[in-house]
């Protein structure tokens, strides 16, 4: 591993984030610990069946490692992960097909959309005490409950947003990794002078551009402002004003010329392409999500340039204010169980096995994601997030912002970032942005 200092930093990060993200709820953590013990199979261990987990990851090694562990208890159970093309568009169909998966991916945004009602209709209530699943190991604010109080889906990964930093470039140029917005602009200026045409890059297809800069900033601004959130959710006229400050931050940054849009537009996707481009070694900072970071380790060897000239890199919050950046924690991936599964008992048994601090943390580390558990053990790549003050942690699921205004914020930010709109235009068009 060529990039990060792990060790005690990772430990401190885990401890601090445990306190921060659980909202100082010591009881929850203790309850989680007490409820967990060695996994003891409840079913006949000679049970034979095949369990399929369907999702949109092209591959899911971390989950397959859990399959191997589970099948040590149930050697005759075949576990299979299946990648579904056009997952979001096909999952509803898949759940009604002859080969419906037993476990499937869900995302928070599906919850309130009618076309995904089936997803939740077929989902097993994982809070059913009869299943014995220890949901207490999950941080409270991450658990989604429907109107009946059921828990149809359990988060297995959370994520955040920030920037991948090529530390070798910073060392070479004698620069420190920026902790404040001024430092960020100063560093970008210095890098520009040093010949880096685009000190910052980001995936620009879709609405991602500058998202790690402005979105956590926006969330932090309106967190706890119930009036603003209510008006935005109601899409009231003038609600766009709540986004102005955010958009001006984006416009200011873009106006300084730190981002070469043409280079960013060349990135075909926000995962493989972004990672491989970053590994070319000439990008000082690459805005990215935790999902993207999760693919970095494996692709180090896939990159000829990185293999030839490896460098140290790490993931940092984008310093959007003079006090620093924010750690926006959001659910990345949840699992639901198909209650129509032909092997429902074994499927629930697998979930009982998986939803534990040990297994979820193991899976998060394997994929370099943030665990949804109270007791976190983060990969060292996230060390910088552990250094943030508790006040700079934002739990997206607690924000209360509806999907549509949230989407409008993203669209506005993208439009401004791409110079398609001015801040005023975007504020004015808020609620009707396509």
């Amino acid at each position, binding site marked *: 591993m060529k990039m990060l200092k792990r060790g005690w930093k990772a430990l401190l990060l885990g401890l601090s984030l445990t306190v921060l993200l659980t909202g100082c709820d010591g009881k929850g953590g203790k309850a989680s610990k007490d409820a967990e013990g060695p996994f003891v199979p409840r079913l006949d261990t000679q049970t034979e069946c095949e369990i399929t987990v369907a999702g949109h990851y092209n591959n899911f090694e971390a989950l*397959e490692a859990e399959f191997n562990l589970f099948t040590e208890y149930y050697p005759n159970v075949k576990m299979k992960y299946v990648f579904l093309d056009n997952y979001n568009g096909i999952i*509803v*169909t898949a759940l009604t097909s002859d080969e419906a998966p037993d476990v499937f991916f869900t995302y928070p945004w599906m919850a309130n959309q009618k076309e995904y009602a089936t997803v939740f209709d077929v989902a097993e209530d994982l809070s059913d005490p009869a299943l014995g699943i220890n949901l207490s190991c999950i941080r409270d604010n991450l658990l989604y409950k429907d109107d009946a109080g059921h828990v149809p889906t359990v988060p297995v990964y959370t994520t955040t947003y920030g920037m991948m930093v090529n530390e070798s470039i910073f060392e070479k140029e004698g620069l420190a990794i920026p902790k404040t917005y001024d430092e960020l602009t100063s560093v970008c200026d210095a890098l520009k002078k040093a010949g880096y045409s685009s000190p910052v890059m980001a995936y620009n297809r879709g609405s991602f551009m500058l998202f790690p800069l402005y979105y956590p900033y926006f969330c932090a601004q309106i967190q706890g402002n119930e009036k603003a959130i209510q008006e935005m959710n109601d899409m009231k006229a003038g609600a766009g004003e709540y986004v102005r400050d955010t958009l001006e931050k984006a416009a200011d940054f873009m106006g300084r010329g730190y981002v070469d849009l043409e280079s960013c537009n060349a990135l075909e996707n926000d995962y493989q392409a972004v990672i491989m481009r970053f590994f070319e070694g000439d990008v000082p900072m690459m805005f990215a999500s935790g999902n993207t970071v999760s693919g970095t380790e494996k692709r180090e060897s896939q990159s000829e340039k990185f293999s030839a000239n490896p460098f140290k890199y790490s993931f940092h919050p984008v310093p959007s204010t003079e006090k620093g950046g924010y750690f926006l924690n959001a659910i990345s991936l949840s699992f639901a169980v198909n209650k129509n599964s032909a092997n429902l008992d074994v499927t629930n048994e697998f979930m009982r096995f998986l939803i534990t601090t040990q297994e979820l943390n193991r899976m998060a580390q394997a994929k370099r994601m943030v665990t949804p558990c109270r007791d976190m053990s983060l990969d060292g790549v996230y060390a910088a997030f552990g250094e943030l003050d508790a006040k700079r942690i934002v739990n997206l699921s607690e924000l209360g912002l509806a999907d549509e205004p949230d989407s409008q914020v993203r669209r506005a930010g993208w439009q401004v970032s791409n110079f398609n709109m001015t801040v005023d235009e975007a504020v004015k068009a808020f609620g009707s942005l396509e």
Partner: protein
Amino acid sequence: MKKGMMIIGNIVIFIAILAFVLLDVESERQRMLASKTEAFENMTVAMESVTTNYLLGEQQVCNSWANYINANQMTEEEAIAYVRDSVSTPGVMAHVLFLENGEFSGLSTMASAANPDNYAVSYKNVAIFNNGFDDLFSENGTVNVTRAYTNPVNAIQSIAFCCLIHVRDSQSGQMREAALLRIIPVSAFEKRWAFPTKDYQNAEISLIDVTGDYVIKGHSFKNSNFYEFYQSYNDYNQTVRDELEAQILGAPGSFEIRNSSGVRCLVGHTRVNSTDDWIIVTMIPMTELKQSATNWTLVGIISAGLLLLLLFNLANLVYLNRQLLATAKEADRANQAKTDFLSTMSHDIRTPMNAIVGLTTIASKSMDDKTVVRDSLHKINLASNHLLTLINDILDISKVESGKLTLSPVTFSIVECAENLFNISQPMVKEKNIDFNFRVKHFDHEYLYSDQLRVNQIFINLLSNAIKYTEPGGKVSVDIWEEPGEKEKTVRLNYVVADTGIGMTKEYMERMYQPFSRQTDSRVNLVQGTGLGLTITKKMIDLMHGTIDCQSEVGKGTTFSVVLDVPLADVKEDARKLPNVKALLVDDDEILLETAKDTLASIGVQADVASSGAQALEKVAGNAGYQVVLLDLQMPDMNGIDVARELRAKIGEEVPILMISAYDWSELEEAAKEAGVNGFISKPLFRSTLYKKISEALGNESDGTDREDTYADIAGMRILVAEDNDVNWEIISMLLQMYGVDSERAENGQLAVERMKQAKKGDYQLIFMDIQMPVMNGLEAAKAIRALDDPWASGIPIIAMTADAFSENVAECFAAGMNGHIAKPIDVKLVLKEIRKIKGEMKA
């Protein structure tokens, strides 16, 4: 070789053999593995044919549909309707897609699972036509098939066989290019396409494209790309990736990887010829290929066997070392014993020799003093006898020690043996005035088959010891009796000698059977002895499988008990009986009364018993009709002579009275005859003696002449003596002449034979034959004489007279045709006995 070296050598050999076995096993395992690897690769290649056949078959169906559609210039709807009608396989469907606008949309033969009325289908979000249809319809491939993808109609993982078709636009009537997809669920494909599990139970198979993406993914194949799968669980870098890719895209073959569980697996690969870019990859755990390649049971058995052999060898080595050590110690002891033996012999031989030499000198210097000469000769005789005994014992013990002591069984009379024992002991008993009781209980079987000489030797040794070590006036008793033997045709002979002698200490008793062991006692030192008698006796008893027991107490006496199981001789017992004789037996010894009554009964005499003279007188007073009275000489209340006198007065002159005595009766003979005694019988009362004496008393047999007193019966006999030694010849000739026997000398065996050839019948009555002689030895001479034509000459009795005194020498003499054996130095009594025996046989 030192023990350590031998152990190391054994261990090295053990390890070497084990290493060889393991190497051979490993070699065989590698060979089997290579063989199985090759077989697995071949199976992978065979799967290519299966795959190609299947793909071609499916592709042909698709092609036929396309041809029909193209030929009939169908509209999209007509094409779909046609294909829908043509599809007969459950789960299989078809799509017709248009490329325009990059939408990849069209119609499906089946409605959407989510909406039964919707037959529209779009592949816009299914990334298999990213580069249009061109990738699917390349010129190289004969099969145009997609990777496994999610069917947008039913969300089932499927593969699609593709054909380019042209359909007529229903509105414009223009022909449009479209793709016809024949869609097969992967699950259906997998059922037809499973790897043979008969030989490869855990083998799995996948199809990948040239980029490593799975077209069909086996269960144990992880990730979405085979190379990523390899990367995830194996050492990986770009070089590895390049080499792996080159290998997979090259000729069929195999390589090893570690799967998601960390298990080593063999991956076989071969390109699918019917497609442009498909590769079959198969995977099987190495453990399955290695199964049964090694016979670990055999290896285990060999290892255990070698280990056991090693341990056995080591144990044997230790045992042999201990044996050698013991043998070395024994040899040292034997050497020491030999030294001790020679020292002892030197002393023990010189002692009597000193007496002989010294006394001879004294006698020669005192020829005029007859008393001195007589005394010297008497002592010389004693010393000579002791020396002879010593030499005999030494020879015996020498044979015992060398293990050459063998038994020469002959038929003999135990009664005679007992009589002989009694007679031999009498001089010593009388000399020491010992109260001697010799009791022979009833013998059902007189004739036994054993080594008579050795039995005699055992009896004599123990009895002579008892007499020697008993102070004058002490008591010695001998009991001999018969019991049924444990085996058939054997008797158990019991011989008990008890004395009131000096006894033995416990310490001495522990080593009394060791050679030359004599008790350290001033009284013992006064008695002549070699210290070999008990040793020889014990060895002989052991040789006869008998037992000897000893009870002794210092100052009180010793009792030896011998038990021998002796086979019965195959001869008829003496059945002579007297015709219904009634007798009175008088003795104060209750045991004698009991045993003598049995013995008398066995010869037909019904005896009343009386334990005292008074009781005897009472018995005869009743006019019981006794025909003979047997009366003990010494009884406590009334001596035998007084009783005889009173009995005679009562029973008259007709009934003979025989006096029984264990002592010399010569001094009392006259008084006894005067009191009415008709004859004497010596104790013990043997069957034959009783028969003879009672018969004589009753007038059935005449009393024989006392041959011990006169030698007229042998006087005038002529004996040929074959003897090469002048002194020996002189001794024997003079001895014989003393008894009126004439002798003639032959200096060797050859001369003896010549003399016999020339002799006339009656010239000689007997030949005494020395054995070791020049020219011709005695054995050869005896054989030659037996081979003479003259029946008299060839039948003449021949008695060996030799210093070869062992039993095997005796046996050799008999085997050569001789009739008897006399050992040198000669005992004149034995010589006379043999002569008389021959004389008697000649008479018979």
